[in-house]
């Protein structure tokens, strides 16, 4: 904890606008009261989350050091939330609405990264910043310093409206319908702290996109996705939005549904408000796993949900803010610092410029100007680099910087003739890496580095892939260079693996009594069309074989693609069975004795564990039958995918359900040698032995995955749509993953012989 914490309030007096200044005073008091044990830990946890102060891995005071699980003996007693120790370092998320930043804010970010964190500021896939290793008692000072330059962390985490994102090119984009910045700004500040948004059961995400076909806004994977649209009404061109609701990634991804083909601009704020009100009123509150808006829309049906929203809209008291911003949309118009100019053809350029220009420079719709992408490895930037970027910002543009959902930053409105100088200055600061938006620009969530839920090292893998691919990217065929890789450390999808050409999410497997880090391979997601389609998992590969997997899949694509055939189309054409057979041999895990490196994750040196699971008593080379049984279940879910692909939703549903049934049986056999394989009995025993005992509970998702099976069992005779069958397959995959994890936990427990 910093010795200067108590001094910042006075130092920044008068520089923080109300009501933020008062809110931060209250927050500081809450920190002090919790420290004294005068606020309940659960209440304080929600309080700090709503201020963006999040937990970080090992904050329960337990860490496996590779040999043994050890207790982290922090000096201060007490907690900052359930199972979250007071002294344990945490993560601070900082909201950057639509990614917009100025030079002063960038400099403050540098100071905070240096003074409170580890010298690194990290950009997330939702245009936020994150700082790690933050002490809770430093957070009020840190937040005040941000507030003094106009940044709030309010509602950056918790059950609230999260950062409102928008495509980073909006306003300068050649294909946009119009600039969505003023709309994103208006909705951000309208909903921030709004009383109608304080009683959600889960988080709520909003994204804007300037056009329908490009990818940057990713509108269709959000709770609200607003895509700029125009319509001619009474001879006048009116602005509005193609308005989507109920999308989301997470464990079971869902495409947003079209709420309104054309929502007039003046209805953007009130309709969003009514959606929030209906969500707060009817959304699930007890079971976090079904509390996102997508579940409510599915439960009610789109028509009924829409009817409720429209009814609610009629009851709202008119608010001048709904339309006030429309009379001054130009407030957010950016201006260039320099007159437009053309990039001069020079006989000699700086080495590396041409490659960088090819991938990192975008010609704006405004002639003579370019947007420059500063490619950040894994979204990381140092304090020194942030200051250098602030210098470049001041010298070449007028505070027109944005963060991107691909974890980079962009400088907009660079006069094109300045590009060589900008490149030179960025390069001097280590910010001149080429390859933005290519296969080497791998996106990754924090994974096991800092996230409490991480299963495999997404950053470790991404760093390795980036390193290998960066070297080769300029000799690669363009078809491969333009693919996108995204990696998540677990099924929660923060790395957005569902919308990548090649997506990976962390899972684990058991081999000979050891736990082995793996990644599920997800192919054929669509980044275009605002995240227009999600990929499906084809199998789990040991982490250490993912680079080979990438090489093999891209190699096959290059060899087999037809002229102009895109990756998704190729995946669709060859079918899932061929995709799976492409990686079949890579799924094998060599023995621990011969290849111990498979049992250590990327960028780590410890023997891999999940939680505190070490080497079980069945260490050795005896393979437990359950490993085979769970592998068979995976095959069944795969066959379910094939059936769905062949248009047989009923068979797909049956296979997905049976894979869960067989997984449940396999686990039960570990507990009790004899029972009938009648599905009702299996479901009953599963509930009694594994759900009621909480043995199947995921440490973070609770009984969610168990309920997938029990629900599928109850509804096994109902007809299914393609969408429901697809969802059931996703659920079955997660159930099997949870079965692997449950088995790992069972190995740590004495076997019950209850028959």
């Amino acid at each position, binding site marked *: 904890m910093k010795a200067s914490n108590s001094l910042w309030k006075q130092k920044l007096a008068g520089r923080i606008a109300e009501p933020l200044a008062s809110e931060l005073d209250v927050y500081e008091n809450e920190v002090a009261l919790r420290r004294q044990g005068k606020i309940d830990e659960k209440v304080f946890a929600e309080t700090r989350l709503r201020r963006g102060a999040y937990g970080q891995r*090992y904050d329960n005071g337990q860490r496996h*050091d*590779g040999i043994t699980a050890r207790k982290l003996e922090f000096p201060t007693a007490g907690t900052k939330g359930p199972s979250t120790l007071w002294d344990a370092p945490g993560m601070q998320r900082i909201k950057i609405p639509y990614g917009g930043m100025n030079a002063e804010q960038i400099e403050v970010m540098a*100071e905070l990264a240096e003074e409170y964190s580890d010298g*690194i500021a990290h950009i997330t896939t939702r245009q936020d910043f994150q700082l790690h290793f933050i*002490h809770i008692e430093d957070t009020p000072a840190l937040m005040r310093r941000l507030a003094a330059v106009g940044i709030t962390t309010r509602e950056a985490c918790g059950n609230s409206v999260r950062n409102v994102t928008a495509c980073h090119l909006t306003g300068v984009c050649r294909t946009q319908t119009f600039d969505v910045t003023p709309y994103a700004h208006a909705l951000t500040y309208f909903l921030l702290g709004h009383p109608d948004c304080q009683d959600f059961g889960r988080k709520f995400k909003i994204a804007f996109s300037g056009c329908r076909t490009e990818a940057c806004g990713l509108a269709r994977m959000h709770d609200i996705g607003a895509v700029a649209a125009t319509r001619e009404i009474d001879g006048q061109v009116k602005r509005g939005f193609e308005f989507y609701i109920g999308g989301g990634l997470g464990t079971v991804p869902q495409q947003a549904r079209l709420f309104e083909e054309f929502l007039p601009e003046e209805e953007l704020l009130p309709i969003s408000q009514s959606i929030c009100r209906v969500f707060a009123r009817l959304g699930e509150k007890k079971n976090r796993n079904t509390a996102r808006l997508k579940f409510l829309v599915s439960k009610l049906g789109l028509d009924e949900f829409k009817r409720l929203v429209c009814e609610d809209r009629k009851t709202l008291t008119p608010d001048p803010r709904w339309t006030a911003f429309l009379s001054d949309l130009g407030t957010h118009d950016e201006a260039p610092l320099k007159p437009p100019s053309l990039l001069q053809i020079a006989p000699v350029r700086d080495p590396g410029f041409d490659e960088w220009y090819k991938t990192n420079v975008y010609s704006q719709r405004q002639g003579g100007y370019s947007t420059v992408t500063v490619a950040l490895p894994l979204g990381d930037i*140092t304090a020194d680099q942030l200051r250098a970027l602030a210098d470049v910002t001041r010298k070449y543009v007028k505070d027109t910087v944005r963060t991107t959902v691909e974890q980079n930053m962009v400088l907009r409105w660079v006069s094109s003739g300045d590009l060589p100088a900008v490149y030179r200055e960025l390069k001097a600061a280590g910010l001149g890496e080429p390859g933005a938006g290519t296969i080497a620009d791998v996106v990754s969530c924090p994974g096991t580095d800092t996230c409490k839920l991480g299963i495999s090292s997404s950053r470790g893998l991404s760093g390795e892939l*980036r390193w290998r691919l960066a070297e080769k990217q300029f000799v690669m065929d363009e078809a491969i260079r333009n693919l996108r890789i995204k990696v998540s450390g677990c099924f929660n999808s923060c790395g957005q693996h569902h919308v990548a050409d090649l997506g990976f999410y962390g899972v684990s497997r058991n081999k000979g009594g050891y736990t082995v880090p793996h990644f599920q391979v997800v192919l054929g997601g669509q980044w275009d069309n605002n995240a227009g389609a999600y990929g499906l998992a084809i199998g789990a590969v040991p982490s250490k074989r993912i680079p080979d997997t990438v090489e093999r899949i891209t190699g096959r694509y290059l060899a087999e693609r037809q002229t102009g055939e895109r990756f998704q189309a190729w995946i669709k054409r060859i079918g899932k069975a061929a995709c799976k057979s492409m990686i079949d041999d890579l799924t094998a895990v060599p023995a621990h004795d011969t290849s111990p490196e498979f049992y250590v994750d990327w960028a*780590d*040196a410890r023997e891999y564990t999940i939680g505190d699971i070490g080497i079980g008593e069945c260490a050795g080379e005896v393979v437990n039958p359950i490993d085979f049984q769970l592998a068979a279940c995976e095959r069944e879910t795969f066959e379910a995918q094939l059936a769905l692909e062949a248009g047989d939703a009923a068979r797909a549903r049956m296979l997905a359900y049976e894979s869960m049934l067989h997984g449940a049986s396999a686990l039960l056999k570990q507990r009790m040698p004899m029972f009938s394989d009648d599905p009702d009995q299996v479901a009953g025993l599963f509930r009694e032995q594994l759900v009621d005992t909480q043995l199947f509970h995921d440490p973070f998702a609770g009984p969610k995955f168990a309920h997938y099976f029990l629900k599928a069992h109850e509804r096994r005779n109902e007809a299914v749509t393609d969408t429901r069958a697809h969802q059931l397959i996703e659920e079955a995959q997660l159930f099997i993953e949870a079965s692997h994890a449950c088995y790992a936990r069972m190995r740590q427990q004495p076997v019950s012989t209850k028959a």
Partner: protein
Amino acid sequence: MQHFRVKVFGRAAEGFELHQAIPVFHRWIQTNALPELLIDVADYSHVPGGPGVLLAGHDSHYGLDLRKNRLGLLYIRRTAQDGSTADRLRSALAAARAACEKLVQEPEFAGKLSFDFDEIEISVNDRLLAPNIPESYQELADELGAVLDGYTFRHDGEPRDLLTVLAVRAH
């Protein structure tokens, strides 16, 4: 003044590989190699001019650091300490020196990494307690003069940097 940051510049010989710090730092956690609570290891070797490989602790972070594109052992004091400024400086310098001595003995780095202590960078990782102005520099240089014998001092860096003194051993 509080929260000192000390960087001892190092020299890499043939065969040195930064990522070897990952197993070394994990081992330090396993063996309680330092007399303080160590938490985790963070790999930032992908960031040009970045923190390299970091050993994160409760009271302090240690790192095999690449900032300003110079390899060195970086010690960062995070929590506040009792005692005088000179006491805290001594403690930070001693912690950095101990880590350097330990690091060069590790099998991964033996003969491949050295620290000669000819140049040491000392900063105050708190802009409010020590603004980067000539007066604070003078105060820090005076304190350093009392604890670092045989060095000359220079106010280093640019105005936005942490208050930083470069200590160069007089030969």
